[in-house]
């Protein structure tokens, strides 16, 4: 397969074409707003293409470690059962497999935080919240800000 330009570079080049070649030729205001939205979506996709598999794998590992600590500290049976269930991530780096594992880890993080809150374990709540912030830091790197195009 062709490795370069990367997917990120291809998408960013599409953004350039939209901004430099297409947008100036469009007079309809609604279509211009849609193009602005499309530009943003493509830029989001470029960042995701460049990093999302690595970021999700890193987060999954950190979440499983946290969930094990939460299960041990709280004795929460549901959490223990969720941890004992086959994770199923495997070694596949195909995006759909990585996303499946990431979603399961997200549910595990939710259950761990709820167990920590039920057990009134401020230390575990703080650790879980830091994982949420790490997740959001990645999301923020993807979106780069929110400004309501066209408004």
């Amino acid at each position, binding site marked *: 397969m062709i490795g370069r330009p990367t997917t990120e570079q291809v998408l960013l080049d599409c953004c350039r074409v939209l901004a430099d070649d297409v947008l100036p030729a469009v007079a309809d205001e609604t279509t211009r707003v849609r193009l602005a*939205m499309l530009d943003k979506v493509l830029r989001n996709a470029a960042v995701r293409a460049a990093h999302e598999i690595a970021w999700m794998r890193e987060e999954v590992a950190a979440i499983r470690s946290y969930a094990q600590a939460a299960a041990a500290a709280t004795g929460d049976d549901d959490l223990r059962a969720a941890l004992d269930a086959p994770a199923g991530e495997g070694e596949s780096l195909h995006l759909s497999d990585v996303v499946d594992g990431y979603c399961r880890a*997200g549910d595990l993080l939710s259950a761990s935080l709820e167990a920590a809150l039920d057990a009134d374990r401020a230390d575990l709540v703080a650790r879980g919240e830091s994982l949420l912030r790490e997740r959001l830091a990645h999301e923020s790197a993807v979106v780069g800000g929110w400004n309501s195009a066209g*408004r």
Partner: protein
Amino acid sequence: MDLGGGAEPGPGLTREALERFLTAAEPGRHPSVTALRPITGGYSRLSAIADVRWDDGATERLVLRGDPAPGEGVFVSDRDAEWELVRALARSGGPAVPTPRWYDATGEHFGTKCIVVDHVAGRTLQDVLRSAEDTPAAARSFVDTVAGIHATPLDGLPAAMRPPPSWDDHVDGVLDSYRRIDREIADSSPVLRYVAARLGRHRPPPVPFTLVHGDCQPSNVLVRETGEHVVIDWEFARIGDPREDLGYYTQIPMPPNVYSDDPQAFLARYRERTGLTEEQVNPATVEYFLVIGMARLLVQILQALDAVSRGESRGVLATYLVNAVTHQYRLYLDACRRLGGAYPEGAP
């Protein structure tokens, strides 16, 4: 939230359709639609401005507001309910609204249910704020309008608008909607599960239910040349906690945001106008109700994204609004971080 739909505002919002509709609505007056153009800038409904000339020489300008085609768009709301509410508000002497004129309740004429109201000549309050030399004065006028919405007598509202059984039921119901959407969609939303858990444990003091606008922002307030404020876009209105509108406004990203500019002045004015106490209305309670007030729209965005993940298309708006979701999640986590100090565990 209005969503301009393209060079034509929507498949059915055309000059011809409006002319046929008005002919049926006003037999014998022979309307001629001399212009019709879409309104851009909103994210939900299709809307357009139309100029009409009647055969007696009278002219008028109207605003049309319809639904996107089924399966398109992101936000869902009920035109019947909006029409009934706008009519009730126009009768009530409460917040000024555009005069409701006609309603295509079946979509027979426009291919979509379509509300027709008088056009209001003026600028949006957001435009006024942007260019105001005395921003605090304009900000106070916005607060007064919001307080006016919340002062609307509930007994004059449509019978279908009923208050929740209790304040706790209301908050629990909203928090459950976050847990439910996390279960229903293919993606995982740990921020929502966490926020629901935290807010369920830390409740601010209740206040009486009021009419809630649901999309409370200066862009939805038109300022006539006389200075009168006219409130538009009632599609997400409901009866709820008035602080939902305050919280909702805090997340509006367009500058200036007159709450963010001076929260204490904003809230002092609001308390003065409503008689609510500082314990009830303060930055912490407003932050709490950002999460409550955004629930309905955030859930709809997540449902649209889930539809995209199943291979359906909801237009570029759906994928674009991923950006808004991240923005909300960040604000929600910030709200959680400050909750512990604001509401000790177990407080009412």
